[in-house]
């Protein structure tokens, strides 16, 4: 079920898909050239019609997002390349291997939203992808695709590539804007700071994921019908899914939604390594509640179905764990990530995630107590009120409430493992889990 739309150029030209020459040769920048002749309404309508949903994790329709942009100008376009969710590495491939698709997408999105200055925010740990993008931007300037009067017309567009510095929370769009303004990457209050109304420099701002933007040249180049024909009836287009963990063939795969998890894990990803049994997997990035084979393996991968099962596809990162995995250790590692990446604004997230991590560490190191399971659940409840999915957001951003997913999944599906750890009562080593 692997398809080639976004990835066809890089697959066909493994050594030079990132160059301007190759991009132009394979039909590059034609979509953008066509787009600048159209009106804002036409462009936004096309995107709406294509049904492309944001690939950043929240899954909000991109066209709808554009149509919310406040009329005030200047407005800004920010491409979110701060891909930091554990398990996710799809944007790295796009940035590294096909930067021109994103640049072309930026031109289309900018024209559609009457934006004259776009920013690409790339996470700090991605200097190589950032270099590729910077080169692509420079080449585009040289060709007159960016800068004053793009494509020989009278539309001006500047692109600034901005490198982050190591903060997962900057993937949250308002935190990203703060970061871009040179401040701490702390999410802003919504209301009143919806980016579409008060974003970068308090001006209307569109924030789109790299993959979303990279889809645009294909939508405008090949047509909406082609694009919609590719995908599942609701989740149109193709999706890059990053599969990692205990599978034989980890990597990024371009798939259409609607295939089952079994097909993905045992087909596309080549099954569990060393012929082991599948124990659980994370269906959509570190903040998604876990799936277990007996309940979920034959479910189709769609946004709706995953949501119904109390999880999410998110950024499309699948982390697979085999039978030998110590689930308490795995959960602790996920919780630790959120504890370290919490921005520190909201009390429940700042204090709660760290406490959860401390409790899990204590349990792992043999200091567990009987009441710790209840304590874990109650602390989780205090961070994510009601423990529902999607979590009720009582904090400024969703990081805190989604940080408890791993703990909840652990207690829900693998309570006996926690009890075992507690019962053991002596320190155990947490390394070498993969053996």
């Amino acid at each position, binding site marked *: 079920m692997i398809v080639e739309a976004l990835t066809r150029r890089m697959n066909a030209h493994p050594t030079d898909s990132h160059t301007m020459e190759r991009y132009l040769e394979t039909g590059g920048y034609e979509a953008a050239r066509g787009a600048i002749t159209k009106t804002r309404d036409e462009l936004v309508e096309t995107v709406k019609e294509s049904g492309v949903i944001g690939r950043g994790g929240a899954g909000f329709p991109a066209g709808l997002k554009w149509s919310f942009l406040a009329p005030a100008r200047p407005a800004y376009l920010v491409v979110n390349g701060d891909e930091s969710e554990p398990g996710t590495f799809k944007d790295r491939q796009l940035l590294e291997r096909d930067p021109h698709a994103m640049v072309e997408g930026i031109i289309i999105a900018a024209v559609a939203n009457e934006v004259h200055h776009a920013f690409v925010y790339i996470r700090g740990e991605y200097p190589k992808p950032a270099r590729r993008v910077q080169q692509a931007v420079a080449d585009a300037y040289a060709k007159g695709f960016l800068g004053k009067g793009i494509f020989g017309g009278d539309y001006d567009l500047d692109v600034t590539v901005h490198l982050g510095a190591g*903060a997962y929370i900057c993937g949250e769009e308002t935190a990203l804007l703060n970061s871009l303004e040179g401040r*701490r990457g702390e999410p802003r*209050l919504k*209301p009143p700071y919806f980016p579409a109304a008060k974003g970068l420099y308090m001006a209307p701002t569109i924030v789109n994921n790299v993959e979303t933007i990279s889809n645009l040249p294909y939508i405008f180049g090949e047509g909406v019908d082609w694009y919609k024909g590719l995908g599942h009836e609701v989740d149109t287009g193709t999706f890059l899914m990053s599969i990692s963990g205990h599978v034989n063939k980890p990597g990024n795969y371009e798939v259409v939604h609607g295939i089952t998890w079994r097909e993905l894990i045992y087909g596309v990803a080549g099954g569990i390594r060393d012929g082991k049994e599948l124990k659980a997997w994370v269906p959509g990035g570190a903040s998604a509640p876990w799936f277990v084979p007996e309940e979920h393996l034959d479910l189709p991968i769609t946004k709706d179905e995953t949501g119904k099962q109390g999880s999410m596809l998110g950024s499309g990162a699948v982390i697979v764990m085999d039978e030998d995995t110590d689930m308490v250790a795995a959960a602790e590692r996920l919780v630790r990530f959120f*504890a*370290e*990446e*919490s*921005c*520190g*604004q*909201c*009390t*429940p997230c*700042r*204090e*709660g*995630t*760290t*406490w959860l991590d*401390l*409790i899990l560490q*204590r349990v792992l190191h043999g200091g567990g107590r009987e009441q710790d399971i209840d*304590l874990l659940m109650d602390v989780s*409840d*205090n*961070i994510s*009120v009601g423990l529902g999915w999607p979590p*009720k957001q*009582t*904090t*400024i951003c969703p990081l805190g409430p989604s940080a408890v997913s791993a703990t909840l999944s652990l207690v829900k599906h693998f309570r006996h493992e926690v009890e075992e750890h507690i019962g053991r009562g002596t320190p155990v080593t947490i390394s070498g889990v993969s053996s």
Partner: protein
Amino acid sequence: MVTITIDGTEVQVPAGELLIKAAEDSGTYIPRFCWHRRMNPVGMCRMCLVEVEGPRGIMLTPSCTMPVNDGMVVHTKSPTVEKAQEGVLEFLLLNHPLDCPVCDKGGECPLQDQTLSHGPGESRMVEEKRHYEKPIPISDLVLLDRERCILCARCVRFSEEISGDPLIEFMDRGNAAEVNTFPDEPFASYFSGNTVQICPVGALTASAYRFRARPWDLREVASVNPLTTTGDGVTVQASQNEVLRFLGVDNDATNHGWLDDRSRFGFEWIASPDRLATPLAKSGDGHTEVSWGEALGAAAENLSAVIEAHGPGAVAAIGGARGTNEDAYALASFMRSSVGSPNLDARLDDGLGTHLLSSLAGKGEIGDLETARTVLVWAADLKEEHPVLYLRVRRAAQELGATLITVHPTATGLADRATHTVTYRPGEGHDLLDRLRAGSGDLADVRAALDEGPVVAIVGRTGLAEDPALAEAVTAFARDLPQASVLPVVRRANTYGAIDMGVAPDLLPGRVAAGGDAGHTGWEKADTSVGLDTRGILEAAADGRVKALLLVGADPLRDVPDADLAARALDAVDVVISIDCFLTDSTAKADIVLPALGFTEKEGTVTNLEGRVMKVNRIVSGPGQARADWSIIDDLAARMGRPLGFESAEAISLAIAEHAPAYGGITWFLLDWKERDGVVAPRDGVEQPLQYIPTTSLRAVGSGGAKRGGFALHLGRLLYDDAVLTRQGASIADLAPGAYAVLNPTDADRIGANGHVEVDGHRLPLRRDASLAEGTVAVPFNQPDGPPLGGSSHVDVAPGAGA
């Protein structure tokens, strides 16, 4: 107004108001740590979660970020809310040290209180708490204990949003986040004390109050800040008959709860060991302690002798602005009735005309800044002289979006928020005003902005070397701007009250022009002619025309810009009688020194720069035998055989209400019980006899000083200087930076100055400021070891010897 339902009760609240504020104002207190009604919400602490019924069901929402909508149904005490509050408190307490017994906040701590009312019974955390180094001093006045910090961002927001000194910031991230300053960059804000007051835990504490008392042994009384003219509401707290703390009170009309650090920590002079406690009489080079009877008898005898020998006009009084209005009224009565001399002045040759200050027609109020579209500040640097007014102007520009124009010889503390920063060379103000009026050249934008009303103009002398007539001209110009509201400002506290009470050569109590034919009621036997102002008195004294000088809380040797003149005057007069709290340079020359009570030691009223009359109250008893000014003056008058017959301060206040027309109806009862924020005189329906309308034709009437050199002098004041009340406050005494000279870098290079310059022969450290006009030198007034430059408008500047 919209209707919302809070816990089953329907209430009417203003549309668009934040839920937490609307609930509080209608009687439901929602617990909170980060939200503060004078700052923008951040929604960080999550303590104020409430349940709101909405289209998507009941949502748990922070009430500090939720504006009210019509028909909103809110639950603040449901089980879900209580569970959430308990959870948040448990999280906050995870790493909060339980050192409440030693913490200065213990007993008045919102975290303690809310833990008791909303928190969990006990901790479930068995892991070790986070530890940081215990209190680290982050400035001369403030200590930071990061273990106690709950990251509510109040201090961070205050410094960024309110005071504009973002020197304290969040550092690090997540669980390691803390507030801190940059290494070696102290939290040197003029407003740092406010962060101590609004800190909801004991993370920020004041060194002046550290371990001095616990909240439960403090008594407190409402009063008014005695060190500024803005009339800032304060709570004075004392224990064991010693004032220990000033807290800002949220007075909507004036200070919004804020105080500057000089006012907040400056109370220490009250308990200074140097306070005068017994009357003193001159004996040889020093003084000896005498009884009140001896002192007053000698004073009365001396004054009577001078009156007999040289006539009443040979007696003059300087000062009176440091006391209450009642003290000032007693002084004015004494001088004009008992002595019969019109020579009295509360100003120390540092201010503006008394008519302009007290009786300007159409004078504005501080509250006008809330609705102003344009704010013109042509006065001294507000940050240095009127810190709270500075905060209000800053708010107008930053939060309310007013266009701010500052006119000053240099860029001021408001420069970062000013839309237009106009600078000029001292002495060329009149030309600038002409160009501004015409809107010529680069001032066209400024002029256009001034045509956008409502305009609030804050007018004063930019420096002590400047022509006082300029402010009159600026006022005349500003009055004609659309919907203009003009505030003439001077620095010394209660100057407005003293002038209103007639401690002025050309005004009688209650804003009545002196010298007119209309007799002042109750003052039929008094001399109501126009007398000499402070400069005139000092000149007359130096010439031998004035023989007896009464100094009432005045130190002319330091406070009058022309220190030479003051020295000559004090040396020349026969009799100097001083009523003061301290033995100052001038008081040391007095024949008789009478110890006076200070603020917090007596009751009375004061008047702020708007003309707002406010009540000050007593909480401590004062040192030794010190007495209130009015009582001393009353006794003195009686011993001279010309009794005034004042029986108490309250009796004087009733006399004021009767005989001072503009103060009609303003009684202590009114201020104590009905108008706690004070009331602007005159009250509605009361007529103010003098309505002063300044004219622009006044030009070069007076002069800031003699032209003695090639550099125009800008003599501005700083917040911390060498004034006696600052000098006597242990915490703030060392904060005065000392004298220095500022030159434009071009000038500095031209004369080859480096490191130091000599200004009229006085060697001063050199600072460079490109915003200062060429050909100008700026020197702060009255700094420790500062040079006496006050008599000049122009000085000589030469490169200083050595680097």
